[in-house]
């Protein structure tokens, strides 16, 4: 029972990270109607930035994280301006291939600078006690290290706890931002109809830049949480989580923000539970299988809108 709770909590934690990345995918898709294949590699860049900053002696953890977020935000906007903006009216496949090119570019840059071997990432909450420890037959301990020699039946690490809390806060803030602020509503409007939004006096280019900025900042946050929970980093760190977050976005209904959150969390839980109870080697295959089944039953994902072509 306790092990199930542990797997579930770990799943929700991993899923929250997926959700953060998926939000970037889904927002960019909604507004620019493109699959930003390079989004996963932004995570990698964020991870390496924080890694480099933290390994210099004078830089405290909080500043490293801030630097990571700033670098990713700027990178996201620059990529959009340089590579995607000129192709805004080009066929979707051309944009997709460009995004793949950007992804190759970021990976190979990282390869040149940091080499292909995975490096150990120091968790940003290293040295802190676990969030929760349950010892057999005793009251649960919060934020405390279990006495040596005792056997814990459930431990939830600080990293796991942090991932869930941070993701939750970011998601609430993002929802409020989109629904309550002028800039957020402008994003919704541009996603709905670019031409009409422009006629209403909305700065379409600015709004698209803002979307890429937010998406990249979320990716940076996700990278810190992910590299803290799974403390390694390499030039390929971002690609599989990126693909999975893309799956999560499609799973929830691409273009839908609550869909990305639900899709991300569900995906994380499915992955952790199948790792625990079915097979750790097949967990990725199971995730994709569930995706295929969901899409066959609901062709536009869980919360996606059905769009009929007008004849």
């Amino acid at each position: 029972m306790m092990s199930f709770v542990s797997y579930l909590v770990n799943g929700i934690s991993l899923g929250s990270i997926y959700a953060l990345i998926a939000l970037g995918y889904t927002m960019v898709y909604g507004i620019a109607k493109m699959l930003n294949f390079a989004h996963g590699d932004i995570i990698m860049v964020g991870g390496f930035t924080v890694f480099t900053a933290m390994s210099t002696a004078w830089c405290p953890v909080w500043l490293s994280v801030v630097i990571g977020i700033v670098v990713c935000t700027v990178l996201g906007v620059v990529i959009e301006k340089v590579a995607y903006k000129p192709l805004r009216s080009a066929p979707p496949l051309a944009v997709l291939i460009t995004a793949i090119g950007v992804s190759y570019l970021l990976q190979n840059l990282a390869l040149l600078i940091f080499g292909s071997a995975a490096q150990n990432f120091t968790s940003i909450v290293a040295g802190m006690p676990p969030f929760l420890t349950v010892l057999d037959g005793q009251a649960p301990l919060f934020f405390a290290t279990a006495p040596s020699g005792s056997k814990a039946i459930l431990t939830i690490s600080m990293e796991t706890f942090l991932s869930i809390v941070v993701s939750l806060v970011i998601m609430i803030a993002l929802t409020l931002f989109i629904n309550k602020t002028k800039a957020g509503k402008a994003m919704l409007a541009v996603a709905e109809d670019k031409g009409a939004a422009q006629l209403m006096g909305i700065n379409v280019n600015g709004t698209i830049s803002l979307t890429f900025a937010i998406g990249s900042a979320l990716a940076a946050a996700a990278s810190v949480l992910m590299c803290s929970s799974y403390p390694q980093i390499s030039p390929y760190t971002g690609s599989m989580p990126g693909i999975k977050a893309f799956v999560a976005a499609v799973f929830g209904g691409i273009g839908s923000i609550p869909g990305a959150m639900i899709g991300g969390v569900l995906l994380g839980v499915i992955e952790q539970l199948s790792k625990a109870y079915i097979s750790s080697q097949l967990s990725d295959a199971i995730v994709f299988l569930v995706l295929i089944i969901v899409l066959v039953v609901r062709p536009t994902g869980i919360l996606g809108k059905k769009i009929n072509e007008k004849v």
Partner: protein
Amino acid sequence: MRKATKNNLVTCGITLGFFVIFGILSMTGVLGSQLSGLLIPIGIYIILAISLNLTVGVLGELSLGHAGFMCVGAYVGGIFSIITQDTINPSWLRMILALVIGGLAAAIFGLLIGIPVLRLRGDYLAIVTLGFGEIVKAIANNIYIAMDKNGLHFSFAASITDIDAATKTDVTAGPLGMKAPQDTNLILVVVVLMICLVALMTFIDSRTGRACMAIRDNYIAAQSVGINVTKYRLIAFVVSAAIAGVAGVLYSHSITSLVSKKFDYNLSILILVFVVLGGLGSLRGSVIATIILYALPEIFRELGDYRMLIYAIVLILMMIFNNAPSFIMLRERIGASAPVQKIKSIFVRKKNTAGGAE
């Protein structure tokens, strides 16, 4: 002679000519052993690119799981050859059977995945095919087959233990993969490639190919003239899968050790890049793009780690130069043609006349 036929003949000539010239250069030793070693993979990648072009260029559906079908062919063909290594001789007969069986297996997978997912469109189909490729890769990574005097032993996700060690032969061992007999040679690759190329040309330049292109251009109008959209999407998808399977068989019999890791989505994407840069729907473009793009990074090996970086930058710049409206206008003003189109215009007929495939 019809224009389409003439174009097809030129494409066949270019393809065959390339392999004959470089084959001879390789045999006479003019071409270094490193470059000679590229000819077989180039042939295999051309088969993959032209088969993917059927799905993406002719049928108009984005598939990111082509490596999955190649993986099915590679494994099924490889397993067949290892099992029958002592019973079926000569080796060329065994290889032909392996090609047929591998292609059929990939076709069956294409059918099984195609029936449920082909009602999805666009990005949804793309992600599902990507998922399919990853599933196939994961399954191949977890299959264990071995032989001993008692026959075949099969296991999933765990290595085989109850086996007579003295007479044991591994067929495939999970993540360690398999060692299929080295039955692929350049002549076989070129023969298979030419058969696939001609078959795709005749497929596209026929009633069936027209139906697929009609669906690509406007599926509602295609339905309105009585074309069965589901049927033709499935046919094209299955044919494309089968040919990818055949390429997989050639591949598994051309390398000393086959591992499933090779067949990840990056491979699917690499093939897609060949197809898109060669020109959607243009078989000749796929052939030329594959030769150039596959050979370039290998030729510039001395650039070391920078070559993939340059490759990425070239890819981005080519897409922007070819597709961005501002660059298209600029090109028109100075009367230049796009870099890729420049290469293409030597071989490919003018844009404003149409026809099936080249």
